[in-house]
């Protein structure tokens, strides 16, 4: 299995390379001049020439691509044209927000979707089944951003002054500061070192960081800020997972061995969870893996509405501002997220169904 994992990771390299080339070419095809976008329409040719030379935009595109590839291998994604800061630093700041948002949404989708699907399958054609499936159908049909706005209206305005009030924007309330765990623990790293960037990245996962530092006030605030966006983002995956769970369970429940298990006198719960659910899990896990893409795409919309400084929003802003280095780096990160999610799904098959051999 380790050999399989290594081989899969090696196979991902050409895919990532292809994606890098495609985004590099596509982002160079975006009409408009980054110099004019950055310095304004009145920038003189002289100023623009210096600007292009500074960011290496004056060289032929294949040369630019070559230089870029070399830098990426060194972990350097270049400088953002818009923010004049290294893209890697921006990535370290922004990616944790999206990871937290995505993981919370996925958790909600799985923890609600799977039980709803199972319940719907074992109580087929009952009122519970009808309600769940109508709900799932509405869930897949709903625009994420619309649900987000409606949720913000209900929980931030209508429920104001009640304990159910939830903040509609931002990652933390004003005045609440999350102290990085390595500072609390008294760790010191030389700035710009790999280890420094790594702990900085981890400490930007606000919920995780506040768990380590046991800062419950920050934890509560961070969770409160994350509820509305992740509920909005989770609806489509939730609905899809619930539907898949239902149909997969129905398929398994009519098998002979389920009847045999029941006839043997096993408890209903044992039959459903140990015999049926275990065997119905394969297509469910596959569909969960596919949802990672939906989450990334939804993150663009959810982060825009809820004012979260994440990957999705900056990618959208970068495309409109022609900030090539950011577009490239973040697309590669999203593609990497895809590859990793699919790898995890494939590896999990072995645990779900011991008959499957990866080779």
């Amino acid at each position, binding site marked *: 299995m380790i050999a399989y994992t290594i081989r899969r990771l090696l196979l991902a390299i050409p895919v990532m390379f292809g994606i890098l080339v495609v985004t590099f070419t596509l982002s160079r095809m*975006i009409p408009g001049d980054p110099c004019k976008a950055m310095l304004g329409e009145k920038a003189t040719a002289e100023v623009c020439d210096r600007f292009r030379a500074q960011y290496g935009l004056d060289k032929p595109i294949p040369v630019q691509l070559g230089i870029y590839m070399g830098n990426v291998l060194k972990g350097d994604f270049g400088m953002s044209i818009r923010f004049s800061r290294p893209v890697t630093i921006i990535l370290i700041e922004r990616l944790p927000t999206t990871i937290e948002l995505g993981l919370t949404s996925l958790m909600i989708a799985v923890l609600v979707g799977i039980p709803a699907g199972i319940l719907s399958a074992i109580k087929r054609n009952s009122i519970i089944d009808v309600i769940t499936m109508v709900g799932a*159908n509405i869930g897949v049909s*709903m*625009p994420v951003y619309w649900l987000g*706005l409606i949720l913000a209206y209900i929980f931030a305005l209508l429920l104001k002054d009640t304990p159910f009030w939830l903040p509609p924007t931002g990652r933390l309330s004003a005045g609440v500061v999350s102290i990085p765990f390595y500072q609390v623990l008294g760790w010191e790293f030389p700035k710009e070192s790999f280890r420094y960037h790594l702990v900085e990245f981890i400490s930007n996962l606000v919920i995780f960081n506040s768990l380590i530092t046991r800062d419950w006030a920050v934890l509560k605030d961070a969770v409160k800020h994350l509820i509305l966006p992740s509920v909005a983002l989770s609806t489509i995956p939730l609905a899809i997972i619930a539907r898949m769970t239902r149909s997969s369970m*129905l398929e398994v429940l009519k098998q002979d061995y389920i009847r045999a298990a029941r006839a043997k006198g096993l408890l209903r719960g044992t039959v459903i969870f140990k015999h049926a659910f275990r065997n119905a899990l394969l297509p469910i896990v596959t569909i969960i893996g596919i949802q990672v893409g939906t989450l990334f*795409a939804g993150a663009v*919309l959810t982060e*825009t509405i809820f004012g979260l400084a994440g990957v999705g929003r900056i990618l959208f802003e970068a495309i409109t501002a022609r900030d090539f280095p950011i577009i490239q780096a973040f697309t590669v990160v999203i*593609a990497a997220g895809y590859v990793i999610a699919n790898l995890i799904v494939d590896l999990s098959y072995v645990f779900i169904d011991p008959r499957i051999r990866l080779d």
Partner: protein
Amino acid sequence: MVTDLKANQFKQKDYRSNSLWRLTLRRIFRQRSAIFGMALLGFLILIAIFAEAIAPYDPIQPLIGIENVNKREAPCIHLFGCPKDRPQHIMGIDGNVRDQFSRVLYGSRYSLYVGFTTVSFAILVGTLLGAISGYFGGWWDNIIMRLMDVLMAFPSLLLAITIVSVLGPGLQNALLAIAIVAIPVYARVVRASVLSVKEQAYVAASLALGGGHFHILLRRILPNAIPPLIVQGTLGIGTAILDAAALSFLGLGAQPPTPEWGTMLGTERNQVFTAPHLVFFPGAAIMITVLAFNLLGDGLRDAIDPRLTHQK
């Protein structure tokens, strides 16, 4: 499928009434969700066709100087106690002093147009690519399917955003972007159908009778891909409408003052706390339209997919 029909004709005439299409149609009408979806869709199509007759106001012309109303005024429905001397606006007034109800009605035209055009384009191109890929195989197959893999490796909305950025914002470009993003799904469906029947005896027979590649593909093989394409296409229209509305919401699709639902939501999204009706109604309209296509698609799949028939 076509050959099945012909074979039946040789037997008895009674068999004709039980043709595959008729059976399928009967099965579709037995699906509650398909009927509900069809009814909802019919209702939306009627609204789109008769928008001019139903809409009480012009969707683009502001009411300044025509009526004494303020911008972003809440809905006023006489039936629910709004004073009779106030003009009736059942979905309120938007930020540019226009009747929101009329704009929502006209919006159905854009949504249905977006759904049908993008999916038709994607099916056309996807079928062509999938058919070439599946029928000729080898080299063609490798190139086309790898290209489709690359397209599918990106989240569809992100890819659509990038394509629109290259082409420039606007409804037409957004349509093209959404259609391009949708192509791989149809190419895969068609390729799978082609592969599953390519080696059948009747295809070989047709080849032996002197049928050309084009004839065999069009008359013998592709009819098999129609049922899954219909199902996938119906579900795909829902996704296309959602994606197009999302692009418009981000300001990349239809531009104001076009009464497109996503654009309406996008321009008024900061007003959600002061004028929630301007956000609620366009979004609900998107949801209902997408729901209609999803219900119809689900019903069609249950009726057409032979694996599911014995369950029903």
